[in-house]
């Protein structure tokens, strides 16, 4: 539930930033990519869609994406994504087999850098 709420809040924040945060707007540029964050069982997920400066999101976790961050479970996802040391915690989660990335990793870095600007 917490993870679902986190994805919902993240969507709201990114939507707002795409409209009114000049740094975030610059960051978006003309990128046309889809970033998926979901649990491995597909029960919780969010597709973040970036299309030449515009932003939207979809709730289905089954969508095709350019990069997907796939968490073993919602509890780990919430803990790591809200951690103050999320890089190290993501690394550790990866080492423990609790997260994997499918697709183009640099896009995920781009997405994460954007989230930092939007917050």
């Amino acid at each position, binding site marked *: 539930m917490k993870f679902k709420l986190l994805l919902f809040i993240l969507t709201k924040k990114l939507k707002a930033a795409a409209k009114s945060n000049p740094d975030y707007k*610059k960051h978006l*540029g*003309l*990128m*046309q990519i889809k970033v998926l964050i979901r649990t491995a069982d597909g029960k919780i997920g969010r597709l973040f869609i970036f299309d*030449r400066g515009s932003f939207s999101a979809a709730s289905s976790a089954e969508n095709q994406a350019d990069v997907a961050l796939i968490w073993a479970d919602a509890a780990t996802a919430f803990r790591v994504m809200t951690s103050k040391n999320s*890089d*190290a915690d993501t*690394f*550790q989660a*990866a*080492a*423990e*087999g609790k*997260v*994997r*990335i*499918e*697709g*183009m*990793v*640099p*896009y995920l870095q*781009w997405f994460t850098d954007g989230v930092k600007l939007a917050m």
Partner: protein
Amino acid sequence: MAIKGGHLVAKYLKEVEGIETIFALSGGHIEAILDGFTQYNIRAIDVRHEQVAAMAAQAWSVYAGQTGVCLVTAGPGFTNALTGIANAYLDNSPLVVLCGKHPLKEDLKGALQEMNQIDMVKPITKWAATCYETKRIPEYLSLAFRYATMGRPGPVFLELPPDILNVSVPEEDAPLPKIPTRKYTVHPDDADLKQAADLINKAKQPLFLGGSGVGFSCCDLALAQFMEQTGIPFILMNYGRGELPDNHPQSIWDIGNIGLTVTLAQADVIVIAGLRLNWLLQSGGAIPPTAKIVRIDIDPHEIDRNRQADAGLVGDVNSVLNELLPHLQKNDHSAWLKTLRTASAAFIDSELKARETPSDPIHPIRLVAQIQKVVGDDAYYVTDGGDTVYFGLVHFTSKLKAGVIGTASGLLGCLGTGIPFAMAAKIANPDKPVILFNGDGSFGFNAMEFDTMLRHNIPVVCVINNDCAWGMVKHGQELSIGKDRLQCTELAPRRYDKMVEALGGHGEYVTKDEEIIPALKRALESGKPACINVMTDPTALSPASVIFYQALKME
């Protein structure tokens, strides 16, 4: 007895430096040197474009462990060679460029190919000079070789006008140096060594990054001892790759560039040896601010460049490691190594799957994996292109020194270097397979060198990753200006294999996964220079494309 200036050049090369192979393109101004090669039995690989002469000679320094030499003629021969010289300069590779010049006696008379070559070449060489006296040829050549190899290596340039090449002098007036060029080593202070050792001994999650300085210092024995003693996970890049085999238990090439990027952020001590923190490591930005840094470099200017070092050891990597060893404790970082491998695997999941999965159209990673399956790790792999270099560097492995080289991944980002490097690799190692993995765009620059390979029996197997585009730039444009506004980045589905067949080589055309291995086997068995033209997925882009695009985004 009298000796002609041109012959004196060849005599010096053969008798003092032990040079037996050089790369050249003929020209009237340098005829006397060419005749000298005949006289002193030096093998001249005559190429079809002077940039190849310079690039192949640079590659000779990498693959043969001997300073490479090229000979080009004045004027256009000189200007054509400039790209190759610039590449060697930015790669810190030793290279001696011998060049023709208009006759001195015709200076300022509008002579054929009269131009100021020295001022043009100075910014991309360590040393550039004109020899004005026949009897001083050995002295100038001695200076050239010493400048090329001492300290941070690099290219040097020596002009030899016909006025001195085509006249004879008594041999006793032009004595050859008794001592050939050799390396002079620089040693760090004891206090610096202890400081560095202290950091390394206390590290919990260390990494060792080695660059071309590792390769040019020929430090395999010291490096093996260092790794054995410290247990540090390591990655060897650029011309340092293969100084220890890719399959060494502590080598982390299996995690690729993405794994390295992720792992670097978690390291607490990073030893950076013979490697500049240039754009490939985000000018130091890839190194976490919390990590302690030990820099080893032959050039003192590099010690704090783009990132302040916590310990700086100036000297060639081999000497420094040998002096560092007595200060190092025996350590075991196997748990850290296991963690970083497992964590990185989660980040490169898609690439690992692509290796094992047949695809239609063929994915370049799958193509690399199939080549590796047939050719193995006792081979030389050369990769040239944009995305092609990424796929090759990350997914080929070799147990040989310089066994996997991404020729276009240096500071100059010089496409077209693959063919000359592959040629030099094969000439230096005729008994080993040499596979060139070439983008279709970069193939075009020096494709005519298949003629050279045929004339000189240099059976390189070139596999073209043919996505009908300048792929990396095309994908960058897709990200930055949109798929509907691509400009100058698309090529056509050309039959490069037929072109090579027409020249007399072996050609193969591949469009399906199951055709890759049989085509490769036929090409290797042909014993000829071969071109396997593989049509690959034009939508497949590498992480390098995305990083490249982001690096050039200015607002």
